[in-house]
């Protein structure tokens, strides 16, 4: 609890800095995200070739000084496609995380706060959604809604909202039993004030932790969907798509497959570490939850 207390006393930014410095896992996660984020944003400045530039003379060339990740079957620079691909992974992952976190915790807090029949019904619906594997639900939604980036985010968010809602609801049930919530109610605080001033701050650490895991799931699922051909559509260079392009040439040009996979691995490892680190730093009670 000490880290959380320290955080409480300092301003937001200074508190966050001391969190990062004091915890190797958080530091690792933040560094990975910052480096890959910079690569994604600065992609046009970093790469020497446009990601769509084909070159018949340079097909399936192994990594070299000119093409540090090699070239693919069309002679496109794999590093350039990798850098631009980071944009898709990070953008889709982050947007899914935001949408899932906001909607999921809203549903969860509402359900846990009102209780009764509404709570029962909402949670049953969430359970029904959770019975369907996230990737299958996302595939089905994409098939129905049509395939574009917005729908991809919608599909992934719908698949992950129930997880967040359930956790937020469980914690809201416990927190709203606390004495200070009861006393707030006794002095006549309105429900919205109770939720925003008394319940939400207590929930934030847990939600933050879950959000980083949702980010990680979303990155993996996006890659899986794009690999199957139902996510980001070629020739856009998403990591899953590059993997899928490269699998035909795996025996002769493994670099096309290896590098985007390592990219996914790194980003997910970073997010998992970040989540674990945040959990330990912000709320030791949550350690047993996952």
């Amino acid at each position, binding site marked *: 609890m000490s880290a959380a207390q320290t955080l409480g006393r300092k301003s937001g930014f200074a508190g966050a800095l001391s969190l990062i410095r004091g915890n190797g896992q958080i530091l690792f996660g933040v560094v990975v995200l910052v480096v890959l984020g910079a690569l994604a944003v600065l992609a046009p400045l970093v790469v020497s070739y446009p990601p769509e530039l084909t070159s018949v003379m340079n097909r399936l060339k192994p990594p070299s000084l000119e093409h540090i990740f090699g070239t693919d079957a069309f002679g496109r620079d794999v590093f350039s496609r990798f850098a631009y691909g980071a944009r898709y992974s990070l953008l889709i992952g982050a947007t899914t995380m935001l949408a899932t976190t906001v909607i999921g915790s809203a549903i969860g807090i509402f359900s846990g706060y009102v209780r009764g029949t509404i709570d029962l019904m909402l949670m049953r619906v969430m359970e029904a959604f959770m*019975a369907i594997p*996230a*990737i299958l639900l996302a595939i089905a939604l994409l098939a129905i809604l049509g395939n574009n980036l917005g729908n991809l985010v919608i599909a992934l968010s719908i698949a992950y909202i129930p997880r967040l809602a359930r956790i937020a609801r469980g914690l809201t049930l416990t927190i709203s039993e606390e004495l200070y919530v009861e006393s707030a109610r006794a002095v006549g605080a309105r429900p919205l004030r109770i939720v925003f001033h008394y319940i939400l701050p207590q929930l934030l650490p847990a939600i933050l932790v879950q959000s980083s895991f949702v980010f990680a799931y979303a990155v993996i699922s996006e890659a899986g969907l794009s690999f199957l051909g139902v996510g980001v559509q070629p020739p856009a260079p998403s990591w899953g798509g590059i993997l899928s392009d490269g699998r035909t040439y795996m*025996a002769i040009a493994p670099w096309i497959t290896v590098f985007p996979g390592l990219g996914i691995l790194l980003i997910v*490892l970073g997010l998992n570490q970040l989540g674990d680190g945040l959990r330990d730093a912000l709320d030791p009670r949550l350690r047993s939850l996952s």
Partner: protein
Amino acid sequence: MLKFFVVRSISLLPLCVLIVTIAFTLLHLVPGDPAVVMLGIDATPERIAEMQTRLGLDRPFLERYLVYLANVAQGDLGYSNFLSKDVLPAIVERLPVSLLLAAMSLFWAVLLGVPAGVFAAAHRGSLIDRAVMFSSLAGMSIPSFWFGLILIMVVGVWFGVLPTGGYVSPFENPWEALKHMMLPSLSLGFIQMAQVARMTRSAMLEILRQDYILVARAKGMPEFTILFNHALRNGLTSILTVLALIFAEVLGGALVTEQIFSLPGLGQLIVSAVGFRDYPVIQGSLVVVGIAYVLINTLTDAAYRIIDPRIRDS
């Protein structure tokens, strides 16, 4: 036990109805007329009208819903135009491949993950513990389909020891079937092993602190018996919980893994259904997989009662 199953089945009905409702609602999210989307813009008005009738789109919403619900209850998931057959048999034909893959992956996850977790907990802080924790961290971060591709490259292509694709029915040739399932199930199982090992380790750490373990040690009982007979049995319930939870993930992962190893499972059916906008197949898969998950969870609850007498008697 029989009473338990009867009560459970009744209480699960609403959940199953909800899953069917989700699948039903999906079709109505299709922008525009599903019949037109399915058949393409070149379709004749007669064919579109015929498809609308088949999908029930010419009837009122509530009636459509009740008819769909009643049909599903009777095992009728609709008709697939593109496969020219009913949806349920098409899914049932493919499901065993996916289930076999999922089951074998879980088998590896348990066979490798549980002992790894037990040893890691027993030797907390040692090299084994750190190795287990590190590989479980790696396992949680590696995309299973990428790991599958790497396995194909290393084991299949470079060493050439195991087949890298295709399916052989275990009823025709069990040995070949095992060999063909080896790489797919290992690539999927490794990821799950990570979670099982982590969960087993933390459950065991908790249990090994208990007094009765101390008593067993004081009696001079062999360490192996203490770990596996005394401690693990107590930790089984929490391990089982994780297994039931990851089953949905394994099935989802199996859909992607099948593509890599050219296994003719549910995944291939669904991906081709997406390409053809074959909505009845997509809806049907959601229903079948969702209800399969509910059933697995019920079996898990039953297993709790077998493992843990405290739950049985309460």
